């Protein structure tokens, strides 16, 4: 499966350890249904939804429990059936008080009335995007951008390619890999639904060549489907970054400060495509997803979890920590390159959480930041072509003008520079802070 399609720069994190994927990539996905779930209202990018149930209410599976707010708003659905215990703030990964609805599971899994559209090839085209919105689907690769907004093609814009991101370049995670093996037909259905909704002729499923079985399964599923092709990509981080993927698949670059649609491309995660297929074919909202639980747990697995399941329940389901509790160093939601560290084990998972990775204390030791030796490894690694070591000096000096003039706003926060730096300099998170600061400043200037 030799393929040299790739971008400039990038790194190979955990290359010797098969990117940390080997413990889970060969194990079939299991269903997991927790006793109680805390479904957050703000799981997508955009304003959090408004809860529309009261404690004590009985909710059915798939019932709307949060009404969408604003242009980027999405409805939130009950992921289990049972009694609402609480409507109030819970600790989430990056918000100490995230509004959430906690539901006690009665394990009956009674569905609300569903309104399926039928087969993806014959269903009415104009109802696909409303169905995607009603199902509460957001990007399931991590950024959680509401999917129906991606499909909002403005006057003068058009889309000619939809790319399904099955690269899964992040370390440790194998949820997309397992999904491609187990639900390959559903993924292609979702892609076809998306293509029909926007009258797109070309659909590309992009997969890194470290997953030959997934490439095979998807190629088989794509056979005879109109305009769908599978494209193997070189294994390199961040191959699955949206900008890199568009560059590799179409040869186009998203101009700075523009969106993929400006170069006539929409990128969707394979998980999102499967959710679209479920929404169209069965009318089911997005209430469950596959998540990889790995690292220092006794039984690393891929679980099909209900949205809102807490990290502690998942770790218990995977046999618990593989060492004493006090030697647990870090619990990361997501892969090692971009994941968020969890402040507690009671954090609930959102629609976009693709993994839980447990590190022991020794693995999560913070390395001391030493002087930059200007070796240029960060310059070679940056997939965007920035000069990270220089940007870091500007961040340290708080020089927003210099940083933005040196294109810090184009940084995709992939972590490659921090990963490769032999002086252990803290680059990526400094850039993220700087970007947020510049964005806040720009907003202030406007308002």
């Amino acid at each position, binding site marked *: 499966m030799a393929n040299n399609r790739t971008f400039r720069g990038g790194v190979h994190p955990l290359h010797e350890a098969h990117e940390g994927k080997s413990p889970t990539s060969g194990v079939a996905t299991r269903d997991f249904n927790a006793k109680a779930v805390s479904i957050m209202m703000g799981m997508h990018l955009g304003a959090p939804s408004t809860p529309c149930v009261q404690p004590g209410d009985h909710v059915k599976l798939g019932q709307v429990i949060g009404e969408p707010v604003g242009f980027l708003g999405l409805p939130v659905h009950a992921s289990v059936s049972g009694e609402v215990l609480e409507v109030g703030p819970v600790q989430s990964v990056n918000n100490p008080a995230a509004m959430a609805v906690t539901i006690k599971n009665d394990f009956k899994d009674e569905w609300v009335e569903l309104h399926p559209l039928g087969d993806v090839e014959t269903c009415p085209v104009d109802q696909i995007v409303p169905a995607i919105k009603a199902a509460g689907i957001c990007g399931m690769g991590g950024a959680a951008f509401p999917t129906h907004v991606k499909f909002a093609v403005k006057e003068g814009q058009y889309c000619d390619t939809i790319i399904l991101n099955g690269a899964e370049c992040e370390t440790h995670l194998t949820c997309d890999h397992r999904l491609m093996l187990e639900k390959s037909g559903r993924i292609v259905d979702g892609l076809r639904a998306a293509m029909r909704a926007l009258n797109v002729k070309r659909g590309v499923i992009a997969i890194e060549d470290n997953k030959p079985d997934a490439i095979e399964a998807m190629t088989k599923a794509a056979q005879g489907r109109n305009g769908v092709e599978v494209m193997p990509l070189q294994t390199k981080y961040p191959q699955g970054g949206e900008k890199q993927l568009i560059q590799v698949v179409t040869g186009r670059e998203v101009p700075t400060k523009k969106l993929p649609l400006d170069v006539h491309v929409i990128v969707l995660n394979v998980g999102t495509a499967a959710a679209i297929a479920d929404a169209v074919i069965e009318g089911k909202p997005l209430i469950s997803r596959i998540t990889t639980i790995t690292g220092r747990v006794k039984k690393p697995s891929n679980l099909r979890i209900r949205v809102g399941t807490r990290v502690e329940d998942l770790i218990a389901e995977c046999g618990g920590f593989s060492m004493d509790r006090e030697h647990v160093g870090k619990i990361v939601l997501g892969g090692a390159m971009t994941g968020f560290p969890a402040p507690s084990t009671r954090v609930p998972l959102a629609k976009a959480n693709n993994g839980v990775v447990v590190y022991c204390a020794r693995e999560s030791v913070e390395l001391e930041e030493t002087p930059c030796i200007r070796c240029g490894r960060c310059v070679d690694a940056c997939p965007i072509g920035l*000069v990270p070591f*220089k940007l870091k000096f500007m961040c340290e000096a708080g020089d927003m003008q210099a940083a933005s003039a040196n294109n810090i706003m184009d940084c995709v926060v992939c972590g490659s520079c*921090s990963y490769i730096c032999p002086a252990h300099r803290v680059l990526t998170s400094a850039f993220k802070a700087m970007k947020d600061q510049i964005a806040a400043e720009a907003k202030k200037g406007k308002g």
Partner: protein
Amino acid sequence: MKLNLSPAPHVHTNQSTRTLMRNVLIALLPCAIAGVGFFGFNALMVLLVSTFSAVAAEYLWQAATRQKVRVGDLSAAVTGLILGLNLPATAPLWMVAIGSAFAVVIVKGLFGGLGDNFVNPALAARAMLLASWPQYMTRWYAPAGLAAVDAVATATPLSNPGGFTTLQLILGSIPGSVGEVCKIAILLGFAWMLYTKTITWRIPVVMVVSTAVFSFAFGNDPLAAVLSGGLLFGAVFMATDYATCPMTAVGQIVYAALAGLLVAVIRKFSDYPEGVTYAILLMNVASPVIDHFITRRVYGHGWCSPARWPRCWTTSTPTKRAAWRCSWSSAPCSRASRR
């Protein structure tokens, strides 16, 4: 259970400053062994004194200026050993120690420490010694092995072209600096640094090829030009100094090609028989300019994005001036942040 909340990325490459420097030290070992083999006990003393005085100077400088002492990163040891390998085995030891201290304190420490020096410390120290004590720096003796007692003053291959066979030039049984004579040892070190990904092939290969091409163009024997003097040693160990070479692949190729041209020009047209030291030093001070003009194109930007040069020449909004200032030299930014 106390959970660590440090931000992504949560994994890190195994390379650190210390392992990189350790790999350079290992790569220098064959040269050191060959040098001691050819020039005997004197050479050993020169290497020991240069290395340990560099480490001592770094320790004293960092302690005296109340910085965190970082001799453990081995960068001072590398500087000292490279300087020692650049000196004749007959160099007086007091001069060696002064050279090491100059390299570490004046060239590196005073300009901000590791990574902030604008020329290669070992080479700058060699140039200083050459200017200050030329009588000791140009006193060459034929290698006589470990048993050497009464060495005989002689001429190097550069001032006496044709006086040595190619085999002699490759093996290293010729007069010269301690580390530069044995080309096989240098190539062994190069191979080790490539294998451990400490450096890339670009600068050494391009610089050597460029010297050969331009020497040929100026009417000299390209093979002799490559094998004589400190060219190979300089190209492998000194032109590749991280802090003083350009950052981008294209920039490094330009830098190395120009350095090779300078070597050929100095050797052919100046009174100096050897040009590697000054060629690399000159390209060191030119590398910020190369880095300014030769950059990677930023994704989603054209070749003329605001931070690139054509507009910087012609426009002068505050943003662009800031970009100009900061990409020309990191000094105004880095200085403010180091306090």
